[in-house]
Structure formats: C-alpha cells, structure tokens
C-alpha cells in the first residue's frame, strides 16, 4: 500500500467515524459542534465554522465556530451576518475554494481583532435540496490550498451531517410533541375532575399558558348576543382583566368565534380586526386565538399573547396545533361544567319554587281557612255578648283577625300567586301590576298578546319572577313615572318587554342590587335571551325571549 493510499484511507476512516459520531448525537447544538470539528480535522484546517441560514435564506441566523478562542471572539464582538464571501455561499449554495479570500473582489474584509485568513473552502449543507447552512474552512495546515479531495470529503461530510441534522430535528420534534401530549393528557385529567366553572376556567388559562409559554392567556365567554367577557386570565398583568367586556362584533376574539376558525397574528398592531384599545391594555405584540367549540356550538374563545421563549414573541404552527388540540379538550370540560352548574341552579330554583308553593298553599288553605272560621265565630259571639265593653273587646279581636287574614293572603300571594298556577301567567301579572300600582302610585300599562295560549309552568314562573324583579328595580333605582309591560308570542318563543321612563343607568356599571344576573340566569336556564337597553337619563328596557317547548 502506498503512502498516499494510506493517507486517503485514514481520511475516509475519519470521515466514516465522523459520520457515526454525528448520527449518534441527539442534540442539534452537539451535532453542529461535532460537524465543524470533524470538518477541520479532515481538511487540516485551523479554523472551521458553520453558518445556519435563516428561514428566508438571505442571512445567517446562527454561527458555530471552531479554532477561534473566546478572547478573540470577544474582541471581534459580533458574529458574521452572511455578507462578503459568506454571503456568496448563502446565495449560491455551491462549493467554493479560494487561494486567498482577502483578494477576492467579493470579500467584505475582516472586522478588527479577526485573525488573518487566506485559504478558504466553503461547502453548503443541503437538507432535501434546500440550504440549511454552510461549512467554512480556512487556513489549511502549512499554508497550503484546500484541494479538490478536501472539497469532496467535506461535501460527503456535509451530506452525512444533513441526515444527522434532519434526524435530530425529527427527534426533537417527536420529543417535544411527546412532552406536549403528556402535558395535554395531564390537563385532560385535571379538566375532567374539575366541575366548578370558575376554577376550571382558571385552570384552562393557567395550563395553556404553561404549554405555549405565553405571556398572557385569556378565556372569553359570550355574554348576550353582542359581548364577550374575560372569564379567566393567567399570566403577566392578568389581575384586573377578568370581567372586562369586549364587543363581539368588533374584536378578533368575536370574529374567531363567529368564523369558528383559529387565527395566529404576528403583529397585533397591524391587524385591523384586533380591538386595539383592549389589546393596548394587555400590552400584547402577537396573538393566537382558538375557538372553543362543542358539537358545532360556539361556547368561547382562548386567546394567547406573546410567546416568551421566542425573541419575536411570535407563536408557530406547532403552537397553533397544540392550542387547537387543547381547546377541543377544554371546550368539552367547560361545556360539561356549565351544564353541571345549570342543572344545579335549575334544581335550586325548582326546589325554591316548590317550597314557596307549599308554604303559600298551607297559608292560604290552612291558616287562611282557620282565620276565616275564627272570624265567623267572633261575629256570632259578638251577637251573644252583653255589654258594650265586652262587644268592643270582641270587635277588637275580630279586627285583629281580619288584619291577620289580609296579611296571610298577601304573604301567600307574594310567596307564590295562586293565579299563576290556576289561571296562568297573564292573570298573575295582571294581579301583580294592579297591586304594584296601588302600592306605589306608579302607572303600569300591561298588554298581553298571547290569546288563549298558556305559557308552560317553568317559563311562566321565570317570566313572572322577572316582572316582579323588574318592578322592584323600577321603585328602587329608576325614579320612573310609568312602566309598560308587553307579553307576546313571537314564532316559537314568548317575548316579554318591560320598559320604564326612569333615569336609566350606565350598562357597563349597573348599581349593586339590580338583580340582572339573577334574571339572566333564569332566562338562560330556559335557553332564552335577556337584553338590557339603557343609558343614563334615558329609561330602561328589558327584552326577554324564551323558547316554548
């Protein structure tokens, strides 16, 4: 075997070993370091480096160097950006050999402190035909030029490196997805065991923030037809955001919900669909919105802002996919929790009405009947008693019994009007408005357009209680002179409109004790809607619609 042959064999062996070493690495940084070291060793280069081309392919986003000590690196200051000779390789992506790179007209020159370099070999690292980066080698030992054989060996090494880089990327992607799936599984289990809606929404926001490494995550739920309310928030500056309302038709969250499609925005300030006022309050730069959908029904939106681990704060496609997977699980949990809360409220309301009905019946049928019998007995007694003083005593007791009977009947009606069960909603509301007019002096105009049709029990009770609450509000808050109540049929729904000519209120800041939440809950239990139209000094209108079964 010739000396030349032995050298060639040794270099091939070194290349083979370098390939093996590269393929055994599972970290991208380690692969890149190994690659430049192996390239330097194979070609006897004093300096070696690998520049990773940014996704757009115009500049270098990463630079791994070998042979330059940390002191020299510090003196040079910044890493190469891909101009000059390095830029030629970035643009052309083919091997380049030079005797003296400083004499090449395309050279950009070295920064102060840079070691002198003359001989040069550059080879692209191609991944599936696309330039991933370039290997740069300079200063071959003995001042010699890099040879064609060097170029071939480094090209072979670059091919092996490309496979290793691809494998590492796949491994990292698989590992990352595995970790994320594990986290999703954990979240799924946590979501399945949490039925308290408030706690669940907090959990949804917190865990998504962890999964995405977001600065801020919001959970928004619809409120009425026109608004979205921030029901939970996690992250920086999250405090104080809960309860904030957004226009459903003028915000990105509303649009994502309406379109039922996720969106990723890299610069929220440039997106005309983003509610800029609210977003400025969050201090958000980027955003990711995912609708919460259950069986085709929109129940809310998840919004994440600013990925902390990315310098640009942008979320990637992987983040979007992850958030969508997460949202599908969270939506089921939120829906389940809402149903549990609704069922619980329905049972409480039903039990309360049942209790009131029993008490009212007891008062009316038992206590009322007993008092009536006492009254009849006292009337008879009055006739038999001799003496004015005794008769006056009996009359006084009889008056007490009359007053008590009135109180008992009033109490029974207030608890649960018999008219509601015996004659239906219209009769009960007529009676209620009459009493209200007598007691307060406020004019009430009640118009019922239901004809002979009876509103079923649960809906009738809810609508009656809403009228009661609304009239109490009129006294307490409105300073109104008149109220009008309209009860009509609207296709397969019953519509109730209560309007007063009072002073109204700021709808964004209703005073304490308005009872609107209670009304809304009653209406939502029936699958209906409640709209409040009001402004300071302009009266208040409540519009309720509930479906008929």
């Amino acid at each position, binding site marked *: 075997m010739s000396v030349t042959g032995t050298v060639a064999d040794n270099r091939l062996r070194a290349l083979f070993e370098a390939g093996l070493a590269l393929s055994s690495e599972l970290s991208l940084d380690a692969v890149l370091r190994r690659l430049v070291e192996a390239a330097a060793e194979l070609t006897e280069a004093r300096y070696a480096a690998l520049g990773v081309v940014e996704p757009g392919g115009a500049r270098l986003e990463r630079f791994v160097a070998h042979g330059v000590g940390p002191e020299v690196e510090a003196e040079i200051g910044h890493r190469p950006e891909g101009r000059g000779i390095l830029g030629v390789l970035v643009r052309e992506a083919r091997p380049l050999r030079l005797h003296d790179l400083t004499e090449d007209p395309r050279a950009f020159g070295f920064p102060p402190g840079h070691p002198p370099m003359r001989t040069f070999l550059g080879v692209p690292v191609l991944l599936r035909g696309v330039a991933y980066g370039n290997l740069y080698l300079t200063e071959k030992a003995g001042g010699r030029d890099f040879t064609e054989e060097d170029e071939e060996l480094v090209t072979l090494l670059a091919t092996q490196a490309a496979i290793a880089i691809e494998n590492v990327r796949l491994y990292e992607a698989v590992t990352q997805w595995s970790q994320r799936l594990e986290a999703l599984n954990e979240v799924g289990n946590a979501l399945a065991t949490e039925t308290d809606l408030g706690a669940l929404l907090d959990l949804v926001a917190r865990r998504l923030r962890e999964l995405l490494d977001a600065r801020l995550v919001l959970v928004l739920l619809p409120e009425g037809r026109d608004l979205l309310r921030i029901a939970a928030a996690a992250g920086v500056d999250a405090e104080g955001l809960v309860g904030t309302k957004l226009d459903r038709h003028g915000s990105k969250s509303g649009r994502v919900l309406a379109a039922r499609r996720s969106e990723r925005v890299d610069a929220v300030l440039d997106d005309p669909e983003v509610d800029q006022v609210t977003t400025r309050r969050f201090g958000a730069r980027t955003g990711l919105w995912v609708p919460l959908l259950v069986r085709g029904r929109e129940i809310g939106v998840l919004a994440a802002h600013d990925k902390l681990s990315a310098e640009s704060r942008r979320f990637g496609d992987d983040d979007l996919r992850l958030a969508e997977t997460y949202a599908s699980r969270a939506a089921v949990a939120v829906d389940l929790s809402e149903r549990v809360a609704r069922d619980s409220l329905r049972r409480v309301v039903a039990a309360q009405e049942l209790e009131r009905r029993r008490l009212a019946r007891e008062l009316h049928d038992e206590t009322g009947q007993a008092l009536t019998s006492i009254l009849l007995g006292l009337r008879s007694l009055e006739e038999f008693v001799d003496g004015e003083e005794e008769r006056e005593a009996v009359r006084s007791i009889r008056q007490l019994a009359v007053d008590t009977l*009135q109180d008992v009947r009033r109490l029974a009606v*207030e608890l649960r009007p018999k008219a509601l069960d015996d004659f239906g909603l219209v009769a009960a509301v007529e009676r209620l408005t009459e009493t209200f007019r007598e*007691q*307060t*002096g406020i004019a009430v105009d009640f118009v019922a357009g239901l004809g002979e049709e009876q509103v079923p029990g649960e809906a009738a009770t809810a609508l009656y209680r809403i009228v009661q609450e609304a009239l109490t509000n009129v*006294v*307490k808050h409105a300073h109104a002179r008149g109220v009008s109540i309209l009860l009509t049929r609207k296709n397969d729904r019953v519509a109730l409109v209560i309007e007063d000519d009072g002073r109204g209120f700021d709808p964004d800041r209703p005073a304490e*004790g308005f009872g609107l939440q209670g009304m809304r809950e009653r209406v939502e239990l029936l699958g209906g809607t409640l709209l409040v139209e009001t402004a300071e000094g302009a009266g208040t209108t409540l519009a309720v619609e509930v479906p008929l079964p």
Partner: protein
Amino acid sequence: MTYAVVLRADDGPDEPGRLELERDAVLVPGGRSVRYSDLGDVYLERLAGAGGSRPTLVLVSRGGERLRISTVEGPGALRELAEELVEARGKAAA
C-alpha cells in the same frame, strides 16, 4: 343594604324609591337621610290603603317628624328592615 320602598313623610304624598342603610344614617327616597342617633322611635303599624290595610314601618325622629315606610320587596322585608333600624339605633345610642 337597600330596599325598594314607598315613603310617606307626615301627611305628604307617597314617594316610591330606594331606602339605603348606611353606617350612620338611613337614606330615604327624596335624597333625605336620618341619622340613627336622631331616631326617637321605630315601630310597626297598619296603614289603610286601597287594597286593605297593610303593615307599615314608622320612623319617628327626635324632632317629631314621622316617616311611614312600606316595602315592595316581598315577604319578610319590612320586619327585617325594622330589626336593622332598631339595632342601628341601639348601637348609635350606646
């Protein structure tokens, strides 16, 4: 604590509005307030009306003015209000 009430001051007209229990005073419809320490007497009486007589809460100030209050809040509200006022008056006197 707030209540929906109808107020009649001495022999004046009925005035519907909000009654609010504050720390030192009770605010009544018409924007007036009565300090608990100025309450001379608090009692329930019956007041005749179009729909028969009904219980009414009477607040008598130390100056002799009478405020008659009925509520539209439903069962138990008037007695609850009476108890709150008696307790507040007692605390103010202590």
